[in-house]
């Protein structure tokens, strides 16, 4: 399972554990965007979560690494590192036992006021608007991580045929729920914010609600399916 990657003139071996300051350890499982590595990250995160290690403050899973922040007044670096190492050693078993990804379905009204850039995305792709909708809603997207803003998912797997460059001039405000494309990424804006993505549709689903104990509809490690609908009713 160890994988070697050339970084500059140095060879790294994964997985590796490195300090991220005095209160966090970064567990890197690879250096590239890869669905298998990403699945390992979430399996490891779940397993550490269930272990309820007293010193662990927070876990942040991302594309290819897991950040474990801990309280060094409870566990020192060596102790924490050894503890995490024991989980990494068991990675294959942990991945085997991991539960299946949760599927989140988002009803989307494509085009019109909800997706003002659908036409230009179709034009760029040399496809009809219906074909773009069919391609975009035709697969389930992996949530590689959530970052940038509360509830903002980094989705993987966009069909290259509908990849489209960002807008030359970003919009000052993009409505909450807007579904967009930027290069070979697709995503959905949980809250109104400035943004340069090509907007192809919008969902009325509330993606992020601070009053809930689980505030984010989309969670890291889940999958997202866009379901075309005619109206937001």
């Amino acid at each position: 399972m160890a994988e070697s990657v050339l970084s500059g003139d140095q060879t790294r071996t994964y997985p590796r554990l490195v300090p991220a300051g005095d209160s966090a350890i970064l567990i890197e499982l690879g250096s590239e965007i890869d669905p298998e590595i990403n699945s390992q990250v979430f399996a490891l995160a779940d397993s550490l979560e269930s272990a309820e290690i007293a010193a662990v403050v927070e876990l942040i899973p991302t594309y290819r690494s897991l950040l474990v922040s801990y309280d060094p007044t409870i566990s020192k670096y060596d102790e924490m590192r050894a503890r995490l190492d024991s989980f990494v050693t068991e990675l294959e078993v942990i991945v085997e036992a991991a539960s299946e990804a949760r599927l989140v379905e988002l009803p989307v009204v494509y085009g019109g006021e909800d997706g003002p850039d659908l036409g230009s995305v179709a034009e760029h792709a040399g496809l009809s608007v219906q074909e773009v909708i069919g391609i975009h809603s035709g697969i389930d997207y992996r949530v590689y991580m959530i970052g940038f803003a509360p509830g903002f998912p980094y989705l993987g797997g966009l069909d290259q045929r509908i990849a489209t460059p960002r807008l030359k001039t970003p919009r000052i405000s993009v409505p909450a729920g807007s579904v967009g494309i930027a290069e070979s990424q697709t995503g959905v804006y949980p809250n109104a914010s400035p943004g340069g993505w090509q907007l192809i549709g919008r969902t009325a689903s509330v993606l992020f609600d601070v009053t809930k104990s689980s505030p984010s509809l989309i969670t890291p490690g889940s999958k997202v399916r866009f379901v075309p609908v005619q109206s937001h009713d």
Partner: protein
Amino acid sequence: MTLVQDRGRYGFQQLGVSVGGAVDIDSLDLGNKLVDNEQSAAVLEIMLGGLEIEFARRTIFALTGADANATLDGVPLAVNISYVAHPKSHLVLGMVSGGLRAYLAIDGGVSTPEILGSRSTHIASKIGGVDGRPLAVDDVLNIGESSTSNASGLVLSGYEPESSQVDLQNLTVRVILGPQDDEFSKAGIEAFLNTTYTVTDQSNRQGLRLDGPEIESRSGRYDIVSDAVVNGSIQVPGDAKPIILLADRQTTGGYAKIATVATVDLPQLGQVSPGTNINFAAISVEESQRLLTDRRERFATAQIHKLVDPISLGIDGEHISVGVADNGEAKIADVEGETYPVSIDEYNHAE
């Protein structure tokens, strides 16, 4: 700019929610201790100064962090000591000196709604504090229930926040190399550790953007597949100059991180202004954890004691002025064995 801040919003970074919180956490902790608050209580963080508050009821408060040359109904106040404000009294903060941010801790804590476990204001995501924004004129803040043991004239003996002990113009910042220092060349690491960087005006609660010698990467590239960042992560983007991430950072970033600031040296970074010179010094994780444990122990064991009985006082060098007394009649203050005449001419708010 004044923001409601506490120790930050933990537990939701995996959902993209920034931690936020006071950037000078030592000053936050000291303020809360002086007014006998829980460590988790929210305070006001005042950048640069300029704030006027009218107290609606009798309130114990303390100012920490940068000295904002504050006055209570005209009487100059010192930092790092608790005072009482009487109903309708006015606290005025001027411009700060010796730092960038002043903190106002109030007995009972600022009780704006708790959002995802914290009251911290995160402006970029419009979460926390007062509607996720800085305070505005005419805002009314509710204060939580006051503790029973609150008192004025309290100081914490044998403990000073680090930010008041160091030269904020020429700062040495201790770092632990990594997590991605191996993305940088030997020359790059040497430039980072052996030359001086300057804080630019493109700095805020999200981070300090520094100017100085370029830090060479091994591959000529600086971007990595995005991963998580922490408070004090030092990332180096394509212009090859370091950025130190602070409280309001986003949860993830796509640049290689050459080093991470030692937790004990973070509070000072909340007090530096553009133009500050910074030198980085590498230490081990173990050393950094020792420093942090020592600091926390020193703070936990430092004793609160009463410096003086009367209620409001300002200390600058030898001058001591004393404000309102509880019975409205105090004319003499007893300060560590010395007696001082007291003017209460301006004070008529006594209970």
